[in-house]
């Protein structure tokens, strides 16, 4: 009897040990009082971004002796999922870089700390790109714009010259030239043609670029003649691209010289430098996408989780504020070769195709000024992507597809 009890206790003890071993201790403050701020980012390994943030971290750590920043890569494909999981587990990072798809969603869910009190002590709201205003969620700012982006047309001059074509300056001419250039394994344009997260962006380029809007007041307006015409243009252009490609694959098509032109964000130049063939690198020029109105969008923001300790919030803000100083913004332009969000930092002369990039980044925001639209952006983007992929992959008429999409989208009124 006694022996049985001992064995029972031994089993229970082993179980308790096993469960205890499964747990883990976290926290950013060590016993010696030093603090480590957790900063995952998909940009950690990207040309330009890595250099910029490493410089920022070095300077920050020099000014904060007991603070280290752990900057590491989480790939873009897994980034939002990783952050979401960590938020759910109550263990968010200390500094968050968020993409267009989720900055408003996290804010609306109460997962981000309001930054108004910090921002009011700086000149950010008065001296930042107009895109910063679009980051307001329920009357508060939870994000600081770190990069705005626009659309650009990357053109391989050599391919156009071989076909006696010039750089298109209107959408009809772009469509015409792309049709001429497509065939025998070559394509007029490289753009996403699978169900891709950037589908809404690309369609918005045509819609907003033609002066149309997906919203009329507080309801969708996807069946108006203007929007349907813009979507038809998008579809015609997609028919000149390799089918079934997502963003990364379509870039490879252009980098390999199989496509004469590429529709991508203004941030695409460093990738061409690192991945393009010698011929593509030499012959690529970036021009404004030939729509009447240039279109911009939020590319990335910095923010602070609501659930971290106040002392860590202050340190995280110190880091964000450091990234916004004029000197840091000048470094941003130098490293990333993209216009800085601080408008007083003139980048036109310092970056390749500076005037094209600046015009694109200063274009109208493609996201309508509607809080519910912004908060439901990911869902809208996904539903748009499904509808657009249906149009690209079939001969379905634009009107019924857009009408069905309109009924399916989450309400914005």
């Amino acid at each position: 009897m006694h022996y049985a009890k001992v064995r029972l206790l031994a089993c229970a003890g082993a179980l308790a040990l096993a469960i205890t071993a499964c747990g883990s201790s976290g926290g950013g403050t060590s016993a010696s009082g030093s603090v480590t701020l957790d900063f995952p980012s998909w940009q950690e390994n990207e040309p330009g971004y890595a250099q910029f943030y490493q410089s920022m971290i070095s300077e920050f750590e020099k000014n904060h002796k007991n603070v280290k920043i752990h900057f590491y890569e989480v790939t873009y494909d897994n980034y939002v999922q990783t952050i979401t999981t960590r938020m759910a587990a109550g263990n968010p990072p200390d500094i968050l870089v968020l993409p267009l798809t989720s900055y408003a969603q996290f804010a609306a869910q109460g997962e981000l700390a309001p930054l108004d009190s910090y921002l009011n002590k700086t000149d950010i709201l008065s001296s930042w790109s107009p895109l910063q205003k679009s980051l307001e969620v329920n009357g508060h700012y939870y994000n600081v714009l770190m990069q705005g982006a626009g659309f650009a047309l990357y053109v391989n001059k050599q391919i156009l010259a071989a076909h006696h074509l010039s750089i298109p300056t209107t959408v009809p001419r772009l469509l015409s030239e792309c049709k001429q250039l497509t065939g025998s394994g070559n394509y007029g344009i490289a753009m996403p043609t699978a169900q891709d997260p950037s589908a809404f962006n690309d369609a918005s380029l045509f819609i907003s670029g033609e002066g149309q809007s997906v919203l009329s007041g507080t309801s969708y307006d996807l069946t108006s003649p203007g929007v349907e015409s813009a979507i038809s243009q998008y579809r015609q252009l997609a028919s000149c691209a390799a089918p079934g490609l997502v963003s990364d694959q379509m870039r490879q098509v252009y980098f390999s010289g199989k496509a004469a032109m590429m529709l991508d964000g203004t941030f695409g130049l460093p990738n061409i430098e690192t991945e393009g063939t010698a011929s593509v690198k030499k012959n690529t020029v970036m021009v404004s996408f030939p729509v009447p109105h240039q279109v911009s969008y939020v590319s990335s923001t910095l923010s602070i989780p609501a659930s971290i300790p106040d002392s860590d919030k202050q340190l995280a803000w110190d880091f964000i504020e450091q990234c916004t100083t004029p000197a840091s913004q000048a470094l941003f332009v130098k490293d990333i070769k993209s216009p800085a969000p601080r408008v007083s930092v003139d980048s036109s002369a310092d970056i390749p195709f500076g005037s094209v990039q600046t015009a694109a980044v200063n274009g109208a925001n493609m996201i309508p000024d509607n809080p519910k639209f912004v908060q439901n952006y990911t869902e809208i983007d996904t539903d748009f992507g499904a509808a657009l992929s249906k149009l690209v992959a079939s001969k379905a008429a634009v009107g019924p597809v857009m009408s069905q999409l309109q009924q399916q989208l989450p309400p914005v009124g």
Partner: protein
Amino acid sequence: MVTRPPAGRSVQGRRRRSRNGSADGSRFFYPALLAPAVVLGLFVIGYPLYLIIDASIRDVGLPNMAALNSAPVTGANFTALGSDPLFRQALWVSLLYTLGGTLPAFLLGLGTALLLNRRFPLRRIFRTLTLLPWAVPSVVCSFLFLWIVNASYGVLNYLLLRAHLITQYVPWLASLRWSIVGVIIPTVWKSYPFFTLLILAALQVIPVELYEAAKVDGARAWATFRRITWPGIQNAAYLALVLQLLWTFREFEIIYPITAGGPANTTQTLAIYLYNEVFQFFHMGYASALGVVTVVICVAIVVAMFPLLRRTLWRS
């Protein structure tokens, strides 16, 4: 007159009772040995299941466990399922994908098992090669086929064109009609060795004498298969079918890297839909309701197959 058992048997009986713990008070020993497994099982299976059911009846957005208890209780997640066309489409795609991915894999597995059960040179090497796809991680398999079925540069299109089976390259993964085939092909390739393995193991315990007797009696190949081979392997085949049906129904790792559910949601199974609802749209409550429905369907598959399993496995 009372017949006493022999003294030796009586001692053995006492000793047996003592060992199994029913007579000396140590009857808790075996349950105690099982307890860690039971507790861990409840912890890693029961608790998440409880959380999913709890979240499915709450109006909760981001999957934040701390906020779960304070979220209001609602039945809206389940009522919304009834009017959601994407749910109906995902359910249909799941069924199509499950049957399309399992039945060809079963036939292929059965065929290769019968082949590999025969004697021929280098049989061991072929057995190993046949089982290799099962060892390939699903994500690796996905990326492999992503390039094989690529519309512009894929080897599949090249071979079909050279064989004059198609007249122009087919955009397998971009086509509304063919995209489901584009994700079924890697699923079949990845899962058929599982059938091969189980059926081959069953084939090897069928006595050779039965085949020799059938040959003497002049039985044809089909009769031999139907009367000797199939009865010998059906237990393993049914079990493998049920397991593979359940695994394929919940499959995520192969589909997501290839199509992410597109184009136009034509490859969006319940698993992909659920993932998007949680991690992209932050609809934890609705996604949990989808999860509960998925579990119910899986249980229904097992219940539907139960008579078959009972007849075969239990009998054996």
